[in-house]
């Protein structure tokens, strides 16, 4: 936790798994960026998908940087340690996710308004002229698989680690595989003579991505300005925070309980009470809080 070095023992193995997964995520995303870059040709839909895949690198990199800092002990300049670096990374990931949605929306609207007809030519291989769209379809199909699998693996880790940054990365992976399918349908539709196909698909998908990005941004901003601890996928008060508040109110009935979230940890403050002799949060009875590491500290303000 904050004033100590490293993560709590209870989450170390999950943290190690998350670090491994995010390195894999970066590796697969780079492979997708290369494959898409080679196949994109003159297709705007492919270029858009390529830019979005590139933006998909931001959350895993932010997580690795945040995890590196989070493990550091407090020092003379940072008395409370680096727990909130995760929150900062969450903010960056949320901006990247919202940017992907807005980028997709802008591109779809531009293509639809300008009625842009995309040209996809051919390449001669061993004497046969092959439509480049087939390579694009293969690249798009490839680009949907890793984010689908990695995003699926990230969700349980994000839940166990209470890590909104990983959760946002899972949403980013969801955005990437959905965009991949939109791109696939777009190129397939283009081949069928429907120039508007990819833009309509992208328009529909951009709505849900922007919504996810907006929700993540709200929570990230809330965390950075000391808002109450939120649920992983929403802006409502988390069940664990409710449990902490309820336990503290029960023990200190005439006081106010304030709470905030620093990264994955909850910090509480009891206003109008002094700590009883021998008070220890480790032994405090908190029904509903199974993962005790989540509560970092309880401060008192008489």
């Amino acid at each position, binding site marked *: 936790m904050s004033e100590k070095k490293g993560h709590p023992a209870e989450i170390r193995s999950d943290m190690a798994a998350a670090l491994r997964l995010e390195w894999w995520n970066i590796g697969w995303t780079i492979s997708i960026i290369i494959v898409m870059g080679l196949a994109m040709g003159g297709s705007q839909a492919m270029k858009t998908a390529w830019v979005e895949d590139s933006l998909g690198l931001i959350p895993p990199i932010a997580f690795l940087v945040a995890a590196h800092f989070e493990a550091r002990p407090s020092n003379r300049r940072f008395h409370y340690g680096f727990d909130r670096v995760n929150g900062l990374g969450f903010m960056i990931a949320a901006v990247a996710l919202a940017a992907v949605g807005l980028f997709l929306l802008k591109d779809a609207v531009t293509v639809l308004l300008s009625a*842009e*007809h*995309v*040209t*996809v*030519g*051919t390449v*001669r291989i061993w004497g046969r*002229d092959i*439509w480049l*769209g087939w390579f694009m*379809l293969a690249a798009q199909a490839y680009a949907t698989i890793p984010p*689908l699998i990695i995003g699926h693996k990230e969700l349980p880790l994000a839940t166990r680690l209470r890590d909104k940054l990983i959760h946002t990365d899972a949403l980013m992976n969801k955005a990437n595989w959905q965009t991949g*399918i939109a791109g*696939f*349908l777009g190129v*397939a539709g*283009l*081949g*069928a*003579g*429907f*120039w508007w196909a990819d833009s309509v698909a992208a328009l529909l998908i951009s709505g849900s991505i922007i919504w996810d990005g907006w929700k993540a941004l709200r929570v990230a901003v809330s965390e950075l300005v000391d808002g109450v601890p939120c649920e992983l996928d929403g802006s409502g008060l988390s069940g664990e925070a409710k449990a902490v508040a309820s336990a503290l109110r029960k023990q200190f009935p005439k006081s106010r309980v304030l709470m905030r979230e620093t990264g994955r940890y909850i910090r509480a403050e009891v206003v109008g009470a002094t700590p009883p002799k021998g008070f220890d949060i480790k032994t405090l009875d908190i029904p509903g809080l199974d993962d005790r590491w989540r509560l970092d500290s309880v401060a008192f303000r008489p």
Partner: protein
Amino acid sequence: MRACRSVLLISLLAALAGCGAYPRDVEGTLDRVEAQHVVRVGLIGYPGSERDRALTAAFLARLGRVTGASPHIVAGSAEPLLLQLQANGLDLVIGEIAPDSPWITDVAVIEPLSVRSQGGRSIGLSPIAMNGENQWIGLLEGLVRDQTGGR
């Protein structure tokens, strides 16, 4: 559920590929050329050099053999012909165009039949089609490669 969707998607694509020409033209250029036996051609700067005339004639003869269409030729300068092409008033324009011409993204410039140098820059004699006519463009690309030996 996702697997079902993927199978459905691939089946749909296979059906599309199997039920006729794929890719298809947005404006149906190749279908119309083959149905009407006429290809509307704009020649930029016609008559031009003897070499360009010979290359253009050879290309149109190849196109005629493959599509069964005769060329209906209109001569003119680049701007009006390319505007006419964009408005679907022509099926094909043949002329010299620089690689950094502002028209490059507005129309589909096929690989050149020949390239010459002017003022230190290269200019290609290329067939030019309307963007999005992917079946037609694929046919033109193949014919150019046949004529130039795929260089």
